[in-house]
């Protein structure tokens, strides 16, 4: 099975391991991520203004290329997923945005939101299946106590993202279970890490990540996993006493599937 793949700026730079592990695990699980021939940065956050068009065009180009290739479009970074999914929803449901974006881009056939945007985690859950994944695990995590950190971008707004129950998600916990770990459910797992505020308002974002870290540690987590490079960065900036290690979910996946060493060259 071949998917179109939108990596995004961070995955190509600061978060290379998120991508390398994901590709290697894909091979192991029988699917291939085919990077779009041309993609541009999604902008990191969805442009909320109802009159914003130009800021959405880079996403529309990526979505339209996947449509041409007749493939579903897989994302890995939470931010890219959020932006592409919401722009796609606009193109399908908001006539004003659809008409103006198409007038601007002048594609051969108008793009009307036909592409399916699917996060790597959704591929694991809905296309591979956690039960099949479980059978392919060669190095189970031996009951390691792992807290899933969702953040906001994958879950909200729930009606558009359609990723999981926005208030009580289970997808990462189910993944941890399939890999042989023990998921730790804690209250702050879907509260914001501070996002881009850590650039100019460090103290404020630290207070948020401290709350998350303390909450996870209090419920017995030994480590946290996330899909988002910005969440990972912010959580690592936390000055809380807990200081739990934070990893990308793909790293754990690679470990359990026995491909981690060959990717990291260890």
């Amino acid at each position, binding site marked *: 099975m071949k998917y179109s793949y939108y990596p*995004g*700026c*961070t995955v190509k*730079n*600061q*978060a290379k391991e998120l991508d390398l592990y994901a590709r290697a695990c894909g091979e192991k699980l029988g699917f291939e991520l085919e990077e779009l021939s041309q993609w541009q*940065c999604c*902008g*990191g*956050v969805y*442009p*909320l*203004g*109802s*009159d914003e068009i130009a*800021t959405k065009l880079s996403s529309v180009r990526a979505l339209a290329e996947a449509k041409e290739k007749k493939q579903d479009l897989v994302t890995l*970074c939470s*931010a890219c997923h959020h932006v592409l999914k919401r722009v796609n929803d606009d193109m399908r449901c908001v006539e004003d945005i659809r008409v103006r974006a198409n007038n601007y881009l002048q594609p051969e056939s108008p793009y009307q939101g036909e592409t399916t945007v699917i996060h790597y985690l959704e591929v694991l859950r809905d296309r591979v299946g956690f039960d099949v994944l479980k059978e392919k695990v060669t190095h189970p995590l031996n009951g390691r106590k792992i807290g899933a950190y969702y953040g*906001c971008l994958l*879950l*909200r*707004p*729930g009606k558009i993202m359609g990723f999981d129950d*926005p*208030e009580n998600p289970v997808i990462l916990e189910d993944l941890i279970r399939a890999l042989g770990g023990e998921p730790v459910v804690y209250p702050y797992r879907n*509260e*914001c890490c*501070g*996002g*881009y*505020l*850590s*650039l*100019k*308002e460090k103290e*404020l974002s630290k207070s*948020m990540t401290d709350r998350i870290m303390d909450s996870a540690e209090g419920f017995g987590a030994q480590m946290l996993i996330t899909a988002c*490079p*910005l969440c*990972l*960065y912010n959580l*690592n900036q936390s000055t809380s006493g807990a200081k739990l290690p934070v990893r990308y979910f793909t790293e754990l996946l690679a470990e359990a599937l026995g491909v981690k060493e060959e990717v990291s060259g260890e």
Partner: protein
Amino acid sequence: MTKAEKQAELIRQIGGTDPYKCMKCGKCSATCPSFDQMDIKPHQFVSCVLHDQIGRLVQSKSLWKCLSCFACVERCPRDVKPGKLIDAARQLVIRQRGQDYLNPDQIPELLDPELPQQLLVSAFRRYRR
């Protein structure tokens, strides 16, 4: 139409949401992770737009404390979307010449080696045109 009324109308348009649906339950403020740091709270944002008190709103520090984490949007029982109103007020400010909240010249001193690119592009999109 006074200037404040025009601006309130513009915020409703850019925000694409209807503040008249608000029933003042305060759930948006109760759930906001930046609540402590905000001079005008999310539920008061809605009230300001309703009552054309735009001057207060565009000078508010809260514009720069909001994370767009959509907690208020997700949890609003009336689908008022306070986070979208806050973004619209922010747009009203940064779309004016010289009102950027982040300048490229400031970036080098804010960088650290671990910082993900995603952080910079996100900040640029929310803080300036």
